[in-house]
């Protein structure tokens, strides 16, 4: 590899050879200044996060392991945008190599050499391999960056357009052209560092072309050598190259210093913030919202400093990639909400206030309002807490808990849609959101030709928590009757709580009425404590979610099953006497609370499969399923009539599939939404909205 005639110590790269003293001094001074700016920037950022509320981390080890896995596999970046993910991987891994390379040179040239008087390892074979690897890494880096430029300039992706749909053109935060400038600055800065690096390399090769310890080994820098060949063909001589060298060297160094000093203040900071965000993320948070002390003087987020440091850091991790913007059902329907814009508004608000030496006066810290970088109430009330944003965020931002935290403060101040207020008052008075008398709760059982056991009085194996929409919505009552017949026919020992059951409170919690949630949950927990049962089952994914994930925080620990999980188990055990199978082709809609929030995608599909139903998937399914629009309390608020509702968009997605005859749901709220949407989109001659439970019941023997 190294020619025996050459001294291996000599086969290295000259760095500051022939530099006059002032030049070396200036260089180290510039390096020091840019590093100092970098560390000052980091200090400002950390001080900003520290101005948020304390937050103690749990599972930090697992967080780190998960982050490393995310990083090495780039799995969060490849999802639903494969080419962007792969190109980012090129940029990331080559950046890491180039960074290690720079550190290596600094270590040997700037630290060890002055101490020992000679290079310790950066020469000979090691140097040649080093040179080769970094040269290729630089190429990969450039390809990745050029793709990102192409993506911004020519692909014109809607998700990369930062103009806001919830602002008018006159408003100062409508256009956000600074963000575009920042993107391009980031890309150009890196591209220029890369190109000048190659040109500098080529220039050095030409300058030293007569030195065999340089020229003979030139192909260990293949890309640099190609540049050199090209420059030579343009008659660049050794002398010319020598005189050109100083300019190139300084230009390369200064653009690199610029990058280092800007890093904590620009988009580039996601290099750090995204990693920490991935470590501290809580994947379960839309399913189990953070608990709050309901007895505290005030709860929720009013001021930007009411967020905890982790949430402030999340806002800085956002790279504006727009995946959440695309996934959000409210945004798709034209509601004034984009999860990305909410995060970015909060970021700007915290940058403008908490980066200052002194924290400004309280009014300037207010999160909700009509001002620039404030969140409007209608934005907050547009959210369906479906978790689609959080699911797809590549850097682990938790939008939903932040949304709910602000809502908690709005609820305290009584700032909400009158329809939500009515629902909450009904829940306070009657334990259900519809405002029906408590005694009506079990009225649906009267149509059955058998009695359902009263779980309050007799021990049961399976306690069925019916849920208020399931109990009181006339369409869904039929599903309850079907489920009762399935359980009865299969000989299951089950019972319900009749009028003692209250709303489980899942949506109450998501609206932000924490006190009412606790009241409902504590009442249900008290009722359940007096019952003798082994497991809880429910057809309602909302009740399922909160009973399973959130009641434990208030002392209610249960083994909770969704109806489809129970039915799957019963079908596997041949416990349900099926008289026939169905020959239907359907499409299946994942409800957010069973699917995305609780990751149960298979049970409903397997149930459908075992009764002979063929599923044709919609383009958006499983973790990418599109919310019906009813979550987060939106079922209580009528949608404006002049928009296409999320349920209608979803129904059209289903109706575009050829050869299916049903739209299968597994949730009372989805059913309510889609029964309307199937009519309003004119799909009712083609599709029937039906519950999985009803399809299973159709397979039982006729009486």
């Amino acid at each position, binding site marked *: 590899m190294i020619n025996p005639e050459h001294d291996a110590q000599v086969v290295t790269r000259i760095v500051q050879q022939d530099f006059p003293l002032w030049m070396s001094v200036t260089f180290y001074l510039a390096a020091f200044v840019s590093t100092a700016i970098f560390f000052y920037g980091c200090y400002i950022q950390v001080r900003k996060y520290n101005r948020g509320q304390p937050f103690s981390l749990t599972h930090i080890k697992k967080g780190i392991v998960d982050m490393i896995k995310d990083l090495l596999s780039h799995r969060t970046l490849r999802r639903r945008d494969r080419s962007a993910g792969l190109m980012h991987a090129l940029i990331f891994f080559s950046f890491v190599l180039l960074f290690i390379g720079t550190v290596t040179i600094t270590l040997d040239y700037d630290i060890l050499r002055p101490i020992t008087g000679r290079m310790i390892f950066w020469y000979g074979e090691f140097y040649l391999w080093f040179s080769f690897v970094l040269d290729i890494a630089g190429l990969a880096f450039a390809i990745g960056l050029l793709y990102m430029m192409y993506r911004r300039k020519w692909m014109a992706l809607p998700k990369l357009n930062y103009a806001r749909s919830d602002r008018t053109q006159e408003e100062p935060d409508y256009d956000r052209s600074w963000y575009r400038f920042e993107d391009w600055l980031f890309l150009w800065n890196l591209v220029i560092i890369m190109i000048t690096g190659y040109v500098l390399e080529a220039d050095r090769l030409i300058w030293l072309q007569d030195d065999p310890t340089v020229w003979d080994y030139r192909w260990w820098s293949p890309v640099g050598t190609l540049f050199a060949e090209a420059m030579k063909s343009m008659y660049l001589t050794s002398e010319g190259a020598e005189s050109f060298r100083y300019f190139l060297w300084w230009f390369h160094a200064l653009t690199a210093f610029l990058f280092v000093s800007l890093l904590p203040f620009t988009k580039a900071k996601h290099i750090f913030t995204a990693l920490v965000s991935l470590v501290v993320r809580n994947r379960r948070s839309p399913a189990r919202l953070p608990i709050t002390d309901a007895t505290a003087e005030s709860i929720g987020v009013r001021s930007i400093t009411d967020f905890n440091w982790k949430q402030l850091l999340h806002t800085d991790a956002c790279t504006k990639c727009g995946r959440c913007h695309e996934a959000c059902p409210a945004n798709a329907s034209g509601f004034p909400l984009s999860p990305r814009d909410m995060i970015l508004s909060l970021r700007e608000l915290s940058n403008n206030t908490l980066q200052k030496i002194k924290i400004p006066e309280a009014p300037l810290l207010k999160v909700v309002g009509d001002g620039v970088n404030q969140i409007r109430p209608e934005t907050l009330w547009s959210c369906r807490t479906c978790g689609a944003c959080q699911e797809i965020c590549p850097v682990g931002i938790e939008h939903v808990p932040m949304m709910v935290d602000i809502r908690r403060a709005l609820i*305290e101040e*009584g700032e909400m849609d009158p329809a939500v207020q009515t629902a909450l008052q009904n829940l306070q008075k009657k334990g259900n959101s519809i405002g029906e008398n408590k005694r009506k709760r079990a009225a649906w059982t009267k149509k059955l030709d058998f009695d359902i056991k009263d779980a309050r009085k007799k021990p049961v194996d399976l306690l069925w928590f019916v849920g208020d929409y399931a109990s009181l919505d006339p369409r869904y009552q039929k599903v309850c009757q079907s489920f009762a017949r399935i359980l009865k026919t299969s000989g299951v020992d089950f019972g319900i709580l009749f009028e003692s059951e209250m709303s489980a409170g899942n949506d109450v919690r998501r609206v932000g*009425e924490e006190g009412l949630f606790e009241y409902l949950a504590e009442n249900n927990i008290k009722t359940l404590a007096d019952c003798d049962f082994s497991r809880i089952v429910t057809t309602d994914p909302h009740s399922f979610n909160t009973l399973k994930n959130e009641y434990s925080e208030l002392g209610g620990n249960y083994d909770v099953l969704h109806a489809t999980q129970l039915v799957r188990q019963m079908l596997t055990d041949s416990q349900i006497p099926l008289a026939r199978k169905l020959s239907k082709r359907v499409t299946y809609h994942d409800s957010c609370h069973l699917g995305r929030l609780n990751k149960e995608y298979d049970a409903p599909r397997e149930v459908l499969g075992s009764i002979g139903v063929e599923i044709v998937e919609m383009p958006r399914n499983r973790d990418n399923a599109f919310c019906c629009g009813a979550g987060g309390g939106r079922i209580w608020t009528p949608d404006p009539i002049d928009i296409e509702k999320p349920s209608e968009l979803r129904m059209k997605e289903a109706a575009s599939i050829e050869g299916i005859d049903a739209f299968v749901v597994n949730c009372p709220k989805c059913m309510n939404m889609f029964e309307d949407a199937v009519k309003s989109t004119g799909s009712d001659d083609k599709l029937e909205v039906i519950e999985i439970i009803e399809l299973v019941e159709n397979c039982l023997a006729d009486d």
Partner: protein
Amino acid sequence: MKILVPVKQVGIIDEDYEIRDDGKNVDVDFLDYEINEWDNYSWELALNLQETYGEAVEIVPLTVGPDEAEDVLLNCLAKGGERGIRVWDDALVDSDSMAIAQVIAKVAEHENADYVLTGTLSSDHSFAATGMCVAGLLNWAHAAVVSKVDITPDAQQITVNRELEAGIEEEITVESPAVLSIQLGINEPRYASLRGIKQAKAKPVEVMSHKDFGLTDAEVGEMGSLSKVRKMYAPEHSQAELIEGTVAEQAKRIAEIVKELKGDT
């Protein structure tokens, strides 16, 4: 400026209910309780005034009712105000509007109130008389069915809009002090979060008896009332009939019914 807001806990019933054995009221087993809807609006008006004028305005909710009625005061205090007053004594059972007004008027005097804001009526008994009686007893001005009001502290007189038949509004000036009976829709009452209601328990509620104001048992309760419930019952429902068939058949049936009702068969 001090504003006294009498609020009432009302009983609500569903389709299923039974009348008490003595036939004078609904059986309590079938009653749920809540704050009278109108009183949400009068309290909201008081809250808005306090928010506008700050410490220049003191607002006090008052209820005349037993222990359980304190819930309505908590509901009010969850939204604002610093203290509440509840007046009760067993002698107050079966009071009518006049007897209740005796108590409210005494509290208003005792508190040196400048205004008393009542609801236009209460949804359970619908007398719509309490506010008027209070004004009479205090010898203050009274305006009923108030749909808009402009109160400023220290004003000698205030401008009030009243809602009349057929959507007509009447604008009047009223001398201060005054009793105003507030109509629904005058504002948008806020929501009292359950947390707020729990926290309101820390605010003081003064519990008093009519005797503390120098009223005798004879001035309140059934004895102090000007009216007395004799009987409460559900009137017979008239029959409704769904007429089906062809147009000719339907016309024939309608003619029969008309004849039946006219009495010539």
